[in-house]
């Protein structure tokens, strides 16, 4: 009986939900209509496309191309904060995607930061542009290869006592240790992102306060505008505590920000 009910529910769900291919086709169509329409009409089509990309995401579709499309749609629709969130999601899956990174940089250039100081500005990226960013998968593969070469080299040296094999083993060991350290660092970063998800401020003129209420004094005189990125620390009721890239901590209404829950 339970199985029958589950089967009926599944059938009903499949009739109600459109196939993902149809959803993608409609999203692409809406986007193209936005491109050819005039300024007033186009925004409506971009919002529609972005919403359909979001529905694909909620159905488990996740890849850098989808997030790039969604980010572009949001940006052209005028929704800067959601565009930033989309680009961040894409970069999480593909840190070396240059177009995603360039699009995120463009979005950050559209944010109105306070005139003086570094309040709210995104973190400075010190990574050399010519050096590929390591991913968990690639780093794991290199570490495993180096680790295996170390053991092969040690075993061969044990059998033949040839010094060049020991040299190879030592080099492989050093590479595997470096790779292991890199994996631990990436894992720590991933856990930090999971524990403190990205928050993008969704409206202009948001003042950070010292407590979770309007009766608390502000942290800084300058307000934060939409597009400013931060990390979630705590939430209490309708208020959230965030930390900016410069280390400033404060509370703001939860509805004033978009949280990229992982």
């Amino acid at each position, binding site marked *: 009986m339970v199985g029958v009910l589950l089967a009926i529910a599944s059938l009903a769900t499949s009739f109600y939900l459109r196939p*993902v*291919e149809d959803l*993608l086709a409609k999203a*692409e169509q809406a*986007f*193209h209509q936005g*491109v050819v329409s005039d*300024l007033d009409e186009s925004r409506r089509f971009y919002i529609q496309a972005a919403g359909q990309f979001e529905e*694909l995401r909620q159905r*488990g*579709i*996740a*890849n*850098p*191309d*989808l997030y*790039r*499309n969604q980010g*572009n*749609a949001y*940006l*052209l629709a005028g929704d800067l904060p959601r565009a930033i969130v989309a680009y961040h999601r894409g970069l*999480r*899956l593909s840190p070396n995607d240059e*177009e995603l990174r*360039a*699009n995120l940089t*463009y979005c950050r250039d*559209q944010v*109105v930061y*306070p005139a003086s100081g570094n309040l709210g500005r995104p973190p400075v990226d010190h990574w050399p542009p010519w050096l590929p960013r390591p*991913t*968990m*998968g690639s780093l*794991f593969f290199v570490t*495993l290869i180096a*680790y*295996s070469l*170390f*053991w*092969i080299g*040690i*075993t061969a040296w*044990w*059998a*033949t*006592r040839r010094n060049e094999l020991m040299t190879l083993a030592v080099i492989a060991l050093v590479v595997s240790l470096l790779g292991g350290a890199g*994996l631990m660092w990436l894992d720590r970063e991933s856990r930090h992102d999971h524990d403190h998800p990205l928050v993008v401020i969704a409206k*202009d*003129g948001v*003042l950070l306060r010292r407590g979770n*209420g*309007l*009766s608390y*004094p*502000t942290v800084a*005189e*300058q*307000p934060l*505008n939409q597009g400013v990125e931060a990390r979630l620390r705590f939430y209490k009721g309708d208020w959230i505590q965030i930390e900016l890239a410069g280390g400033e901590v404060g509370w703001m209404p939860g509805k004033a920000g978009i949280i990229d829950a992982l």
Partner: protein
Amino acid sequence: MIRIGFLLGISVLVFQAGSIPAAEPDSPKNFKPGEKDNFIGAEGTSFRMTSRVSQTEVNVDDPLTLTIRISAAGKWQTPPRRPDLKALERFKNGDFHIERATSSKADREYPKENAWEFDFKLRPRDEAVQKIPPLLFTYYNPEVLFEDKRWIPMSAPGIPINVKPRSRVRPREIEGGKPLRPPERFFQVTEGSEVLRRQSSFTLSWGLAMVLILAPPALCMGGYFIWSKLYPDAANQARRRRSRAARRALRSLRSYSGKKAEDAVAMGQVLVNYLRERFELTAADPTHAEVAAFLHHLGCPDPLIGRTARYFQECDAIRFAGNENPSMNGLASEAESLIHDLEAQPWSASS
């Protein structure tokens, strides 16, 4: 009866004049004569209150100054003290942050006009704040007939204000009002089935990590074991090469040319050092007979003992013969061969 009715009617009229239908908090309509709430200490026959603000447009959390002016229209005995805004209901909802004043006295006095002004610094906390609420305070008029009717209200209406957020200027607004067009790449969308793939971040469980850490050494050990079974000679040679004493002796032997008498002495000494280091030969400068006896004690086969003893005999002969160009054919290679053969003995592996 008529007099009683008249008095009753007058009382009703007085009561009706004194009663105020309930309206809003802090509203004069809601005030009943005789109530002492919000008394500001002023005593006199008639006081009036007005209010003004320094500006009607202000940003969120920026200060503005509310000035309350209280003036006496008639005789007065006691001047007003600073009104307490936080005592008013409408100021208790937190719409304004009211800065604490340093003194309860008036900020400015106008003796000729019988007026006093009090300044209050207010900061609106939210854009939703639309006005400064109306004010209602009381003074004491000692000349009113009935004592409980001597507290008289005075009020000032609310003042509309416009609270704006801090900053709304965008770069495109500075550009003359025309929105900047994003680069062309934003107007392109990736199409195809690639957009529908489900990609997730790489994760590694602790269990799989332990398997991958232990797999290479286990496989290498297993491979070595299989190799030693498939190629025993090669394995044996490897074991011999593992002997540090043998490696050192062989390396030393290669450094000698084997053509001079001194080399013969040295090579013999190398072999003695090898026996001492490898098998713990105690004699400092053994004769060939002592070496033979030592090897016999270890269980070395007789042919090998004989070869070793003859080697030392030849070395001694060259050493004591005084011939500067002795015949040392194959002495170096014989020494190497002896070392290899000694390492190959079964009893040497356990030494």
